């Protein structure tokens, strides 16, 4: 590496624009930051040697330079932004709320644009390979941008000395020249700056007053936070870190919690559904316009069990209660790293029992049987020598091309085919559907009817384990610290530069120039020091004139 020695004696890295120590522009490098064309010095990263601005030969250099460019970073952000927006034109596949397959849904619902949306894969925008690639590229850009700037900037700020080169002073945006300033005035100026929290360093009468340097590290800190968030996103791809499942559990039922290696069971003691009272004085105006009742609570009273010992196949596992609680929307229940969320309900939508009575031709009751959808009972003895045999049971009845079948295991629309055996050995078949019983034979000797049916509510619970959450939390916290550090504080520097009987004052900040000017104005009050001029502002004005 070629080192560059400045006239002040400091040895700078190759590519340095402004000497790290005295700030003197280094000959031959001024084009890098465009200082050769402007009156003011470009103070970004203090003119330090950035790798990206120095080397551009090998493929590594070129890749590094590509990703370290803010322009490229902004483009990546803008492309991601536009892609994200496009994904919201129509609902994502995840949210489409239709039983139609996506290949039909988008075209039927939204016509040609919907078809194009689907064919381009925008219905799964946020899990598409190219969207994830965009996020990954942003991640790479974050790392390289940060390294490219942080390392040299830190070095430059560490090596800076109070005594600066005059050229550096004069080419700052805020600058003034005062004649014959008394030592007292100068001391007062410095004192007041000290009171404002500036750190004062002195060298041969040259003074550097500096404040809030830590704010310069804000961007790098927040970038670390963002990288942690992206890493946490990758971690979730592993099932031991993250899984998600869903279960329906009916009132009174004890069900296995899926995806837990058959280790946990949940009992739904009771499901509570409440609505707002239409006569509530506070809300009656609004509720008047509501066609349906407005729900106020969905709640599952649950007991969680853990399997006690190893499960022997074919045997009922022995269960041990580990916790119980109320699961509500906004109030999930957690145990052993697994969390259950209240997510769905099917109010009074599943049949628990169906009570069917059998009468003879005269209307005299022979007996009844209660079909329980939870039990696997096929034979019912109904008294007087009669018995019923269940031949077919369809929990959710539907008719397909292959004949009758069940579209799920949940008894939402149960159908039964059963036969009635009389003591004299006769057999008659019946079909039950939608709380009606139809004889399958033409002339039935009996009168078979539904006496009652008992419906229950099923609660839909989301089962989740997410061991990546803490990392998201840490990432978000670090991001917030960084972004506050960088945006709510401002790095300010004021240089006092004596020259013969004059006193030159220059100042620089990375942002909020208004505040810096105010600091100086207040500190030089009642002294003979001239207020700094904003040379950029004057520049603009002279151009306009």
């Amino acid at each position, binding site marked *: 590496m070629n080192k560059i020695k400045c006239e002040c004696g400091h040895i700078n890295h190759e590519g340095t624009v402004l000497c790290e120590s005295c700030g003197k522009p280094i000959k031959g490098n001024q084009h890098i930051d465009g200082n050769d064309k402007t009156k003011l010095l470009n103070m970004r990263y203090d003119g330090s040697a950035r790798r990206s601005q120095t080397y551009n030969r090998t493929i590594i250099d070129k890749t590094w330079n590509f990703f370290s460019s803010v322009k490229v970073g902004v483009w990546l952000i803008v492309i991601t932004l536009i892609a*994200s927006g496009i994904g919201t034109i129509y609902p994502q596949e995840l949210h489409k709320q239709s039983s139609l397959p996506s290949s039909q849904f988008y075209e039927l619902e939204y016509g040609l644009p919907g078809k194009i949306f689907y064919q381009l894969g925008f219905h799964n925008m946020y899990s598409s390979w190219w969207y994830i690639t965009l996020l990954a590229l942003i991640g790479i850009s974050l790392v390289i941008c940060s390294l490219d700037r942080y390392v040299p900037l830190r070095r430059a700020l560490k090596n800076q000395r109070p005594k600066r080169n005059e050229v550096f002073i004069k080419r700052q945006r805020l600058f003034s020249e005062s004649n014959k300033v008394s030592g007292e005035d100068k001391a007062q100026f410095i004192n007041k700056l000290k009171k404002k929290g500036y750190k004062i360093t002195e060298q041969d009468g040259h003074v550097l007053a500096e404040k809030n340097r830590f704010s310069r590290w804000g961007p790098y800190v927040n970038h670390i936070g963002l990288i942690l968030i992206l890493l946490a996103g990758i971690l979730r791809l592993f099932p031991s870190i993250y899984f998600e499942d869903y279960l329906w559990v009916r009132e009174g039922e004890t069900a296995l919690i899926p995806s837990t290696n058959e280790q946990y069971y949940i009992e739904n003691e009771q499901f509570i559904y409440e609505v707002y009272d239409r006569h509530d004085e506070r809300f009656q105006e609004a509720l008047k316009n509501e066609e349906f009742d407005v729900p106020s609570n969905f709640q599952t009273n649950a007991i969680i069990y853990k399997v006690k010992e190893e499960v022997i196949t074919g045997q009922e596992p022995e269960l041990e209660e580990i916790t119980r609680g109320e699961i509500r929307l906004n109030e999930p229940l957690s145990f052993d790293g697994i969390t259950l969320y209240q997510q769905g309900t099917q109010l009074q939508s599943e049949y628990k029992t169906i009570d069917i009575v059998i009468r003879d031709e005269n209307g005299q009751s022979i007996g009844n049987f209660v079909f329980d959808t939870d039990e696997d009972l096929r034979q019912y003895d109904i008294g007087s020598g009669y018995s019923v045999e269940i031949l077919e049971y369809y929990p959710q009845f539907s008719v397909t091309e292959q004949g009758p079948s069940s579209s799920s295991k949940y008894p939402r629309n149960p159908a039964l085919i059963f036969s009635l055996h009389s003591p004299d050995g006769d057999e008659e078949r019946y079909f039950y559907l939608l709380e009606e019983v139809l004889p399958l034979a033409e002339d039935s000797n009996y009168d078979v009817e539904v006496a009652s049916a008992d419906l229950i509510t099923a609660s839909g619970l989301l089962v989740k384990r997410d061991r990546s959450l803490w990392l998201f939390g840490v990432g978000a916290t670090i991001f917030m610290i960084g972004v506050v550090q960088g945006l709510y504080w401002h790095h300010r520097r004021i240089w006092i530069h004596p020259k013969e009987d004059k006193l030159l004052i220059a100042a620089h900040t990375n*942002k909020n120039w208004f505040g810096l000017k105010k600091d100086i104005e207040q500190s030089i009050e009642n002294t003979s020091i001239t207020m700094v001029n904003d040379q950029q502002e004057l520049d603009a004005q002279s151009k306009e004139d």
Partner: protein
Amino acid sequence: MDLPTLSSNFLYVAFIAYLIASIIFWASIGKRKEKNSKWVNTGIIITIIGLIAQIVSFIFRWIASGHIPVGNMFEFISFFGMCLVFAFLVLYFIYKETTLGLVALPITMLIIGYGSMFPREISPLVPSLQSHWLYIHVTLAALAEAILAISFFAGLVYLIVKIDQSRRSQQTFWLEVIMYSIFSTLAFIILVSSFGAAGYNVEFSYEQNGETFTTEYELPVLFEPNNSTLLTEGAFTTGIEAPGWMQGADAGRKFNTLVWSLLGGLVIYGLIRLITRKRIAHSIQPWFKRVNLDRIDEIIYRSVAIGFPLFTLGALIFAAIWAQQAWGRFWGWDPKEVWALITWFFYAAFLHLRLTRGWHGEKSAWLAVIGFAIIMFNLIVVNLVLAGLHSYA
């Protein structure tokens, strides 16, 4: 008077205070220095009185409903308006830039007025909103967006001053587009409230996905819902149907209202231009004559710098924590979430561009305008048109 009535009366007081303050700021233009500061101080005091009245209105409504009133469009938008005034005052006390009030207060009034066109009854909280995070997430997000919106107000001042009005250009065109959208909002408020006062109402029933819905029009029917039957006998209608690809609840009615607002905006805009014979931005340019553009540029940047961390915390991080608690996933690519992310990306890009030479001044001002458009899109279009978990309508 009961609490809800008191609450809405205080909102009227606030509204009138903002109106008076705007007029005072306008009248202070061109006054000599000492006199000017007297006027400006009065204007600021009246603005503060208005803000206090609005806070009182907010508190009364809170007591009346038993929950923080940010649960529907009307409540959220008027809370957002309150935050806008607060953010304006904060930036005013840092930079003492009165002209900002000349833009901020009228637009805030329009926004509050717009919100008041939505149903104003106190409604109960559905289970998904019953959480402490409603208080924290929604309020902080609104405050952050309000602070970000200040950059738009400053940006607008910057553009009005900076853009050369002596000749036609792309810049003058887009500046007029901004003016026109402001007038369209005004037209919307005037139309909806006057037809509302007259009790205008036309009912349609229409079919969608095999279900029958009814919808009530509050403005004369230019466009009927797609595939609909008129229920109100003898009502005026053009008989033209809204395009079929417009989906979602009440799509036809919303489209009808939009067309009316745009037409109304055109009428107001056209009339003013006919009278002044100048572009709107040209007519008001002299008001801002004495503005220091460097300071305005600084305000654009500063309000983004202050608002961005708050937005991240309120609209993304707190939102994620709540979503994790309510739905078991902290991020679900719901349209509202995506648009919050887009807003965040946009302002992140803005902050990065400030590091680049040539993006200060006018370009920053345009970016501030786009940023505000994104915020408004997320508030209005995403809530009303793109259905999702945050849909209010």
